[in-house]
């Protein structure tokens, strides 16, 4: 019976994430527009864009190989698989045993490599530029992520996301400097992974500094729709990950608990809303940095992760 409830939770979770992903993107855009004094498009706009793109036939370059045609599916599949593993309103989903943080990092890398290969497929200048930058930024973001994971693994004794979320929800750990440092590191990684300001600007094209958009410059039609969907899913995933680890209040425990689920759902929507607001405010307040300052930004995140783990050793030794 427990497995059935897990499966039900999983299905509801997947549906929730699929609905939330375009909305998160739309809401952030709308919030940013309001903060800048514009009216802004409706939060539903990304959904409409996706539908419009899906109905268009993709145009491929003459020398595009099967990589260009397969990569969007691989990218979206990897993003969806990763999203399926991050708990949202309740723990104990059917796939929870799979949900290992190192594995989630691996799935994100899978999507990233698919996108970089798609960028290189046609052999155009922008695609190569974007792919090289994306992979280079990831080279610093990944160790920062792993060091943050190390802090969680030391505190919770596992890299399983479900168990980490559970341990943190119990609140027996108290406030920790290391967790604060890990949070800062994770935020920087999230900003870089999702191509947000100040690392990249999701709203512009054809800047000399662009990264993410450069790789999908040649994509169109359903392929572009899939890339956009994958990006939206990845953003939602990171917000959900931050919510699950650092703000675990209200998440329903595993098993069948309709009321708990409802509370968890409301809490999750509230958390994601707050995170969206914070992201929109941050992006409105800050300017995009030069490409060659990004390594410093990510390097600082890496060092903060290192510092967090270091201080954790100190405190485990003292306690």
């Amino acid at each position: 019976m427990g497995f059935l409830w897990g499966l039900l939770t999983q299905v509801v979770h997947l549906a929730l994430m699929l609905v939330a992903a375009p909305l998160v993107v739309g809401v952030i855009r709308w919030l940013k527009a309001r903060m800048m004094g514009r009216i802004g498009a409706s939060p539903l706009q990304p959904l409409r864009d996706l539908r419009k793109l899906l109905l268009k036939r993709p145009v491929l370059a003459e020398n595009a190989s099967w990589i260009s045609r397969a990569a969007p599916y691989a990218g979206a599949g990897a993003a969806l698989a990763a999203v399926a593993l991050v708990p949202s309103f309740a723990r104990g989903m059917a796939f929870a045993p799979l949900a290992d943080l190192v594995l989630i990092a691996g799935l994100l890398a899978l999507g990233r490599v698919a996108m970089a290969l798609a960028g290189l497929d046609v052999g155009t200048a922008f695609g190569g530029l974007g792919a090289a930058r994306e992979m280079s930024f990831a080279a610093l973001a990944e160790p920062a992520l792993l060091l943050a994971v190390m802090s969680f693994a030391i505190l919770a004794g596992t890299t399983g996301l479900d168990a980490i979320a559970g341990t943190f929800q119990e609140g027996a750990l108290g406030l920790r400097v290391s967790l604060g440092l890990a949070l800062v590191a994770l935020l920087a990684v999230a900003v870089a992974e999702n191509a947000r300001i100040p690392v990249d600007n999701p709203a512009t094209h054809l800047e000399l500094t662009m990264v993410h958009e450069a790789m999908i410059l040649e994509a169109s039609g359903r392929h572009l729709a899939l890339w956009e969907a994958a990006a939206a899913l990845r953003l939602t995933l990171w917000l959900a990950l931050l919510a699950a680890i650092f703000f675990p209040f209200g998440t329903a425990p595993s098993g069948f608990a309709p009321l708990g689920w409802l509370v968890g759902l409301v809490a999750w929507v509230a958390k994601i809303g707050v995170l969206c607001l914070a992201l929109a405010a941050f992006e409105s307040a800050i300017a995009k940095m030069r490409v060659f300052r990004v390594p410093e930004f990510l390097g600082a995140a890496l060092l903060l992760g290192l510092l967090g783990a270091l201080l954790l050793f100190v405190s485990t030794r003292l306690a």
Partner: protein
Amino acid sequence: MLTALSLTLAGLVMLAVLPLLALGRGWPVGAVVHGGSLLAAAIFAGCGLAALLGGAPAPQALMPGSWAPMLLALDGLSAWFLLLLGLAGACSALFALSHYGRAPARVLSAYPLFLAGMALTLLAADGFTLLLGFEGMSLASWALVAADHEQAENRRAARLYLIFAVASGICLVPAIGLLAAGGEITFAAMREAPPEGWRAAAVLALVVAGAGAKAGLVPLHAWLPLAHPAAPSHVSALMSGAMTKVAIYVLARLLLDVTGPAQPIWWGVPLLVLGAASAVLGALRANLEEDSKTLLACSTIENVGLIAIGLGLACAFRAADLGALAALAAGAAALHALNHALFKSLLFLGLGEVLHGAASRRLDRLGGLIHAMPWTAAAVLVGAGAAASLPPLSGFAGEWLLLQALLAAWRVGDLAFQVLAVGVAAMAALAAALAAAAMVRLFGMAFLGRPRTPRAAGAADGPWPARLALLLPAGLTVVFGLLPGPMLSLAEGALQALVRQDVTERATIAAIRVGDGAGAYMPIGIALLLAVLGAAIVFLVKRRAPSGVARSPAWDCGFIAPPQHLPFGDPITQPSAAGLGQPLRRMLGNPVLAVHEGVTMPPPGDPSPARIEAGFADPSDRLLLAPLARLRDAVVVRTERLRDLTLAQCLMLPFGTLVALLALIAWLEAR
């Protein structure tokens, strides 16, 4: 079983003689030699598997009645590496069968000797046989590196390789001597009397230097990016895939098994530090190299580093009485060794196929090969995915285990070790991400985009045996990626030998677990999840969207049609190897690799283009090789003075040496 293996070794030696007999007679010995090597490799793999499944046979003398004992044995550790050697060797021989049948006799006869040397090292049960095999392997592979000696760079590579091979011999002989302090050189006897005090430290330093130089551990890696590309492709595959693993085997055998479990925590620290340095330096260089095979060789340095980290952690965990974690770290090392042997063989063979088809190793002369060589491209994509440690391929399984071991390293109570382990974890993750960037660059430059030369446009896949040599490791890479649990159970014997601890209860078909529910990796589940979700996406999208695609010229913000004389487009409009490496060169290159970039502008009025030059210098050249070269010159100047000695003085030298040696013996006897 050992008799069969001895006979196989003898057969390989006979195969080595065959090309010499056939010199000038025009016999088709190539097919015989490579066919025989294929058979031998298959026997190695079969025996390894049988020994892993059925238990170790009793040790046996190689040549009964010979003047040295020369014991052979096949315990779990040997069998695991023999399986690895067999698989890599089979792929390499299969590839050679279709491409190197007409190779000159010096290559044909060195190849089976190389295989035999590696197998003998793995099978050795005493120090002498181990050294015999190790040196045989070094010499045979030196002949193979020097195969294409018309080119000056290959001669330089072979010379450097020989110097390092001799150096590792110089380190390993005294190490074995110190281990065999009781006079017995069998491993069983060495295990009884593990070294202590200064002898232990000396053994550690010598073995790390000797075997580490062969494995390519920083700072003794300078030969590797030169020698591996210089050899013919099937030999590069074997050198990178198997020979570095044989060196790892020697490290593991001498430092973990033979010296016994009674070593302190710092015993693993040199391996940990050097491994982390190798991982990062190798991966970073792989992002800067512009030669496809050099790139792969640098990636080998990275992977050897990761394996060394696993072994070092296993030492430390074992010393801290954390048996389960020691088994985890050792399992990570063993699994990654096997997986790397396969995917690196695959990549070298695939790029060898590219070398045949497109006649270049330089990334800037390839491009668009995915259209011309679909089979090779697909196989290399699998290998590159594994090297980039993407789930659910085999590279990720080893990486996952290694990271889990690193994440648990804080359980070793020592604060300094904990701090070190955090640094190493960050470097391992950095290396993995850098490797992913390097692999994207490799595949993107060689197979994607448009052809950069006419020759690259006219390439074609190899004949079927060569394709099979790519598809076999590609298939195994996928299978091993999906089944790390059974592979770990298979490695049971090897782990027993390394850390005297088993992992069986934690590795099942579907999952590997670490610690007490501390984490689990279920590759089959992940593969199924990816497949189901991917299929669902395809189904949903295809149902809504119009089918098919339209084709048109690339957009690229206004793409200019290629000029007449370049039918495949101007290569300058495409990303270049140096350009793809630029962000990492600027981000990380400077502190480590002394990267330099300079623009040379033409004088005013000159219409020629401005040139940007970028390059780097490996720190080992500057810090290790250059001082050694200076030292050599100084020594030579000193020794030149000996020529001026009179006859009596010349005679004094050997006489004095003789007397000194006799005095030493007398002193030793007196103690």
